[in-house]
């Protein structure tokens, strides 16, 4: 049995990161994520680990990537404006295949927007914010215990697949204090390849479908990591066949492992005639609404996505065989609803409950939308 505590969402994420083995944090203050940095500045040095406040978010992610290549497990946390600045280095982490975890506690945008109000409007920034073709993993917890477990999962996925992983939260999830049972460390499964030894210079040499090993500097071989497209040695190349293979390798290491990456929760779905698709704070309102609707005899269920990217396409398709009405609930002007529509065939009635004014939906508002369906 773990210890029961009342903690803020941001602090839960920070604690989970340390439990997952995080030993390097670089960040820049921004509302509503600053508590993560504050906690890390206090706790990491107690363990002999590194904390540094950088000059901006670009530098923060740069330092995290550098530390990661030097063998650390690194974390940074930010919100929308800072996440925009990080996109350049998010691409560098994708290209170099470098593990790093980024928390984005979403607030209203665009630009400075609503610093102290929640939103879910960075869903597409998480997917497509950096330039070029790339896969990305993004997870999104909604409940206190999920903040803990998804943060640990984010670190494990980033180490497992040699990739940056984004933890999306919103201002409500990040700032709210809730009770949580922190699991014992021995109950947590941590993926780590820290004992991996580079055997030669061909650090990117693998066939499509093979998972990459983690390679760090200072392991006895003079390796090269590059933001330029590179060959199996990491050395720059524009050779078309090599470039195409590297692009495919980076995509396939994610898309060939969807079973391991995609995670979701379902509530009241067995006999549901209407399905709500939601995540984060909106999933919480939706769950309460579903429970109220059930009391009134309405057959509605909730599909709560924990993995946002890659999108749980196959899972939704499966449910659309039986359920023909789907309501996407999200705090933006319509982002994930387009992903749902892309998956849905013509016989599916897709609707969305959208709002981007900084106020989360109440269960009653979601219930009203269910009843109007």
């Amino acid at each position, binding site marked *: 049995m773990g210890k029961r505590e009342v903690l803020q969402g941001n602090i839960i994420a920070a604690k989970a990161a340390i439990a997952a083995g995080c030993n*390097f944090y*670089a960040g820049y203050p921004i509302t509503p994520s600053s508590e993560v940095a504050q906690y890390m500045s*206090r*706790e*990491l*040095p*107690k363990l*002999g680990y*590194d*904390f*540094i406040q*950088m*000059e*901006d978010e*670009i*530098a*923060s*992610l*740069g*330092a*995290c*990537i*550098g*530390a*990661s*290549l*030097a*063998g*650390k497990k*690194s974390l940074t946390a930010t919100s929308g404006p800072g996440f925009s600045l990080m996109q*350049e*280095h998010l691409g*560098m982490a994708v290209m170099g295949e470098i593990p790093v975890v980024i928390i984005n506690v979403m607030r209203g945008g665009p630009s400075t927007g609503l610093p102290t109000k929640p939103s879910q409007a960075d869903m597409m920034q998480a997917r497509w914010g950096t330039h070029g073709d790339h896969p990305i993993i993004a997870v999104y917890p909604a409940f206190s215990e999920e903040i803990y477990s998804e943060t640990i999962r984010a670190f494990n996925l980033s180490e497992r697949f040699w990739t940056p992983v984004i933890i999306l939260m919103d201002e409500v999830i990040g700032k709210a204090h809730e009770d949580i049972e922190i699991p014992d460390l021995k109950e947590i499964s941590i993926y780590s390849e820290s004992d991996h030894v580079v055997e030669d210079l061909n650090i990117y040499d693998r066939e499509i479908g093979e998972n990459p090993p983690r390679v760090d*500097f*200072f*392991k*006895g*071989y*003079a*390796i*090269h*990591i*590059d*933001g*330029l497209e590179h060959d199996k040695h990491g*050395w*720059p190349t524009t050779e078309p066949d090599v470039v195409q293979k590297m692009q495919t390798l980076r995509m396939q290491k994610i898309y060939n492992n969807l079973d391991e990456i995609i995670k979701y929760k379902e509530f009241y779905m067995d006999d549901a005639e209407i399905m709500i698709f939601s995540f984060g704070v909106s999933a919480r309102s939706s769950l309460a609404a579903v429970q109220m609707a059930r009391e009134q005899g309405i057959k509605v269920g909730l599909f709560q996505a924990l993995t946002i990217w890659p999108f749980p396409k196959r899972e939704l398709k499966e449910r659309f065989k039986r359920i023909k009405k789907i309501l996407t609930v999200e705090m933006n002007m319509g982002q994930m609803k387009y992903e749902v529509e892309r998956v849905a065939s013509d016989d599916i009635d897709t609707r969305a409950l959208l709002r981007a004014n900084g106020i989360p939906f109440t269960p009653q508002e979601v219930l009203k939308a269910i009843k109007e369906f």
Partner: protein
Amino acid sequence: MRDYERYIRYRTFPTPWCPGCGDGIILKAIAMAFAELELDPNEIIVVSGIGCSGRMPTYFNTNTLHTTHGRALTFATGIKLARPEKTVVVISGDGDALAIGGNHLIHAARRNIGIKMILINNGIYGMTGGQVSPLTPQSFITETTPYGNIEPKFLASELLIAAKASFVARETIMRLLPLKQVIKKSFQHSGFSVVEVISNCHINLGRRNKMKDPITMNKWIASRSVSKAEFEKLPPEERNHKYPVGILWEEKDRLEYSELYYKHIVPSAKEAAKKSEGKHE
């Protein structure tokens, strides 16, 4: 094979640099400094950003990292804090370090994190075809200042001294041995060090400014460099056309950032942890 050649990764040759470029001289000077200090290649990491200078790490037979435009220092900061015992070298150009990377530069200097920076100043964006940089001399013609450059340039080394770098030196590619010597000294310095190397880009700067061959351009570079002592004797109006070379600033006693972190922050935090043990958070 000469001593310094074991630090050069011949497998990745040829380099993308134009014939007559100063970058090759700088590559050699750095390798010679590594060799004289007998550094283990596995204990060195060379990091760069974007531009002609950005390609240099590819040719070092050490750990090497080629990153984003202007931001090599941020990656290097993470590496140095994570592994303070390693020799972390950053190679940057004038556009890379002082335009897009200006913010990172002044903060790395202020922190005094033990990165050894080689700032190659050729006064132009060479890789992209010759656009004006923050170190292009005033009135010079470039691809984006076809009527002459109206912006004054930064005095890079002086800016870095103001930003609290603890070792600042300047040399030119015309003086290989003094260059090697000063790079070696900077590698022995524990805090943030910068060696500004005045280099030539006869192709993209010289060609448009009556110095189309490397010899003419390098003579121009040599004619402008004077020792620090000589520079200080010059009347102010003549100083605008000259730059002092050699070690310009050195603070030997100042603690390096990661040293401070591990000697001050970590023990203080551990002490605080001990005190709060048993107490509820």
